Every structure is written in C-alpha cells, then in structure tokens.
C-alpha cells in the first residue's frame, strides 16, 4: 500500500471530524469512499492528499509521513481533484491541462519535450484532443470534468484522488466520467481513490469500498461483501432491497419509500438493532425508521 492513513484524528479548528481513523488505499485498484453527508469521507480524502494535516496520527505515502514531504514532492506522486472546481475565465482546455505540469517545473524552466508529450497523452486518453482549443467554460458538464481529470493525468502520477467527481452531473455524464476513470485504472494501471455520493455508482465501479459513518470506517471490502441491506440501514438509515444488478451482477440498492416499508418488514426486522437513527438525529424517537432520510 503506497498511501495509508494511520490512526489519524482530523479536525477543522476544534471541530473534530474523525478520530483514530485508519484506512489504506489498495494499489492498482479503484476504491470508493461512501457514507452519508458529514461522515468525514471528503475530509479523509483531504488528509490523504495532504490538503489537511491530521492533528494526531499520520498519513503515510510511500513509507514516509506525508506532512514531512514538501507539497511539491507530494504533487509529483499523487494528484488530487477537489470538489467545486471553477476554471479561470476564458481558459482553453489545453491551457488548463498544462497546469498539471506545474509541480514538475521551476519558476523559470520552460516546458520541455517530456512535458509536451504528457500533456498530449492526457488530452488523448481523456478524449479531449478535438476540444483542446475550446474554452473550458463552454464545455458540457461531462467534458469539463474530463478536462479537469486530464489536468490530473498531466501530473503524471500513478495515484489519483478525486472528491465527488460526478456531483452535479447528469447521469450520462456521471457514466462518462466514471467510465474514463475505470479505463485509466484498467489500461494505465492508475490507482484511483474517490469519494462518491451515489452508492449504486460506487457498487458498479469500485473494486474496493470504504463505508464511513460519523468519522469512522465501519466497513470495507468488495461491493458484494460490503453493500448489503444491513449496511444501508445502518449507515444511511434507509430501508432497502439489495438485488443483483441484472447486467453486472453487482449489488444494486433499491430504497423503499415509507408506505411500502411494511412489505419489507423482514428486512427491517433483520437489522432492527442497527436501524436506530438516534445516533445521527438525537432527540428523535429511536424506533421510527420513517424519520430516516434518503440520501440526496
């Protein structure tokens, strides 16, 4: 494992998000962090990418504590695509992708042949060659996200971390982005670790899933092992039927709305002790699964 969080405590000022959290990103795989809002999955990703310094414990990259490495050093080994990206005004796709070479260049060193090649390659594998001269703000959501991913690729790292790369995208664009990441993993051997909101997308694309709740890692493993009705009840507070995806055979969670919930009472009964939503909603009656909300 090249990248690993060891017993980290993560906090913003005095607000502690996670305590004693350990997770290791499996090399050469696509791993996905899921969990309800505020569970600390994005925070965990930030600490793994050196954007947030743990207040206790450490993140280890290639056997070294990440905070001891310079930010430039880290940028040469892992790329992070944060959430909520806003491209500078009137910038072309190619100009944007060139930023990926930043960690490899000194202030005065001009771009070399190797830089040029990797930028070309990044544009090519993300399918952005024909759009290289287009302005980023004129692209569709999926194309824009592919341009940002091309920027990360141009960093030339084997590790790529992404924080909710599909948020706010139409489903066709979500598939476009996730297919691209899948291809990068299979064809280029990139290790991909990302936070996703949609657990069914996670199930389809992940080799390894981390499930987080209240700042703790509650489960990890293959989608089939991890994504059960019990997990969804326990972590997301929803009643659901988990079926096998008719095409991929992976688990597919079908949430059940309130009225039909009695029909699936056997599921609820099976997971009764853990459906208690009181942990996330103190003060509310602990035996009313109807107060549980579906993830947005």
């Amino acid at each position, binding site marked *: 494992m090249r990248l690993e969080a060891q017993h980290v405590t993560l906090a913003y000022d005095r607000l502690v998000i996670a305590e004693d959290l350990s997770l290791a990103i499996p090399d050469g795989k696509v791993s996905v962090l899921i969990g309800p809002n505020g569970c600390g999955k994005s925070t965990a990703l930030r600490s793994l990418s050196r954007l947030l310094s743990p207040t206790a414990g450490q993140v280890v990259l290639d056997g070294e504590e990440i905070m001891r490495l*310079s*930010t430039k050093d880290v*940028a040469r080994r892992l*790329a992070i695509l944060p959430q*909520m990206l806003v491209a*500078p005004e009137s910038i072309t796709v190619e100009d944007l992708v060139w930023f990926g070479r*930043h960690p490899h260049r000194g*202030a005065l060193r001009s771009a070399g042949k190797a830089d040029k090649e990797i930028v070309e390659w990044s544009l090519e594998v993300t399918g952005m060659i024909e759009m*290289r001269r287009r302005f980023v703000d004129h692209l569709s959501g999926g194309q824009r996200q592919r341009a940002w991913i091309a920027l990360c690729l141009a*960093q030339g790292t084997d590790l790529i971390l992404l924080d909710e790369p599909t948020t706010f995208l139409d489903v066709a664009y979500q598939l476009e982005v996730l297919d691209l990441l899948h291809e990068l993993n299979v064809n280029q051997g990139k290790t991909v670790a990302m936070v996703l909101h949609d657990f069914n997308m996670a199930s389809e694309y992940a080799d390894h899933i981390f499930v987080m709740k209240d700042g703790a890692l509650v489960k990890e493993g293959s989608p089939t092992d991890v994504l059960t009705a019990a997990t969804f009840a326990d972590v997301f507070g929803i009643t659901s039927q988990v079926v096998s995806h008719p095409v991929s055979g992976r688990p597919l969670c079908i949430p059940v709305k309130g009225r039909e919930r009695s029909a699936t009472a056997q599921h609820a009964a099976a997971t009764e002790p853990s459906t208690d939503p009181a942990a996330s909603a103190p003060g509310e009656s602990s035996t009313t699964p109807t107060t549980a909300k579906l993830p947005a």
Partner: protein
Amino acid sequence: MTAVALKEPTQSRSWAVPVGLALICLVLSVASLGMGTADIGIGDAFGLLTGSTDSATASIMLTFLAPRILLCWLVGIALAVSGAVLQGVIRNPLAAPDIIGVTKGAGLGAMLMLLLFPAATAGMIPVGAFAGGVLAALLVYAFAYRSGTSAIRLALVGIAISALCEAGIRFLIVRNPPDINAALIWLTGSVFGRSMSDVWQFLPWVLVLVPMVVFYARRLDVLGLGDDLAAGLGEPVERTRRIVLLLAVALASSAVAVAGTVGFVGLIAPHMARRLVGGRALTLLPSAAMIGAALMLVSDSIGRVVLQPLEIPVGLVTAVIGGPYFLYLLARTAKTTTSGK
C-alpha cells in the same frame, strides 16, 4: 520567456499587445512633452526626435517635463501591476490598491512623516507611505478574513479602513495649516514639479518588484485555480499568497509615496488588459503595466491642458475617468453574481 511561448503555443497569447501598448506610451510621452506649457507645442515635442527644436526649448522640456513623464510611466506600471496581482490573488475583480485600503493607508503614513517629522528627509516619506500601506492592507485582510476573503467583505472593510485613514489625514491637515497646500496636492496625486531625483528614488522599487512579480507569474495562475487544487499541484498556497500580496502592497505603497494617492489606475488598468489578452499572468502583467502607464500619461496631459494655465492634479483626472468605469464594473459583476455561475 519567448522560449516558453514557442513551446506552448496556446499558453502564450501574442506579445504584440504589450509591445503595441508600449509604443503607444512612447508616442504619448513625446506628445505629452509638448502639452500644457505656454510656448511649447506638440510640434516642438516631436521636433526633439528630428532635432529641429531649438536647444532652449528642448532643455525646458527635458528638465521640467521629462521627470514627470518618467514618473507617469513608473507610477502607472507600479499601480497596474499591483492591481493585477491583487485581483488575481484575492480572486476578486474589484480588488485594487485603492479598494483594499493600501492607497489611503500609504497616504496617511506619508502624511505622518511629512507633517509630524518635518525634519525628516524626503527619503523618509516613502518609508512612511510604505509602512502605512502595508499596515492598512494587513488590517483589511485581518478584518475581512473569515476562512477566505469574500469579494463584498473585502471591499467593505477596505472602504471602512480607507475612511479611517482619510479621517487621520484630515486631522493632520487641520492640525498643520501651514503645510496644507502642498499636502493637499500631494494627496490628490500629482506628478507636478517632480525632479529626476524623485525618479531615481522610485525607479529601484519598480525595477526590483516588477520582475519579482513576473517571476511569480505562473504561480499566480495556479493560485487562480483555487486553494485546494493549487496545493494539490504542489504550490505552498498560503506562503505564495503572502509573498505576492506583499509585493503588490509594496508596489502600490511606493507609487503613492512618490506621486500621492493616485486612484483607480490599479483597478481599471488590469481590467482593460484582461479584456485584451485574457487572464494569464505572464501576458496580463506587461499589458496591464503599459495600460497603467498610458492612463497616467493621458491623465497628466489632460490635467495640464484643460484648464490652462491652471493644472489639475493627475489623481483628479484618473478619478474622473476611473470612477464611472468602476461603477460600470460594479454593475457588471453584480449582474453576473446574481444570475449565478
């Protein structure tokens, strides 16, 4: 830098724009030599180039007007580069030395030196201006900072701190009536009666600080991607931001120290440049600098001509040009922010 341009065709826009602007500035400078003095016309100014102007006229122009034209260049460059950096770093199109309090802070600092320590040599005034500008900028940043600086808050705090400095300046003026006139002219921003020694005093600031800013050009662009991505790209965000902010504040403060509080140049020059060449710092900075110089030259010439033989301080003219432009910008940004991204 041209090597970069060759290897990254789309990363560099044409250098024709800043070069063209520089040529315009040169023409403006020569024309400006022939403006505003009773017996000298534009013909005499251009005659300097061909050698057809008589030596007495030439020496008048070179002694009295050359220093102030050089100062127009330097002040315009310093203010424009400062504004371009501030707008980039704070990611706020309304950021400028005047808006974030640097100009008035530097004014107050210089006034304190000028009036409270009359014994202080002229060389001490820039020190006072510099300290005042940096202090005001720090105050504004501290009050506006709330895990990031929003556009509106920064502008509002800047206005408040500027008003405080203004109050201080007025208090000093009231307390020291004998020096009022010189102080007032200086405060409006003027390059009147400046000599070559002022130029020599200011030149090193520009010669040192502007190249330093250019050295940070690509990092400025990286900061424009947002803090997280910039850090992910290996940029020590906080450190870089503080360094370039300090450079910008130093440039603006030193300009104010020599020419008084010339307003709006630092705001509108980068905006105009961005429209011409786009937002990449490496081409934006020289273009903004040349537009800043052009604005100063034009404003100073206008100030000398319109109410002859009276002279209008250059800062008044830039305010007359810049005020409406600023309102226009405000209206435009208000529109884009309310209609959503």
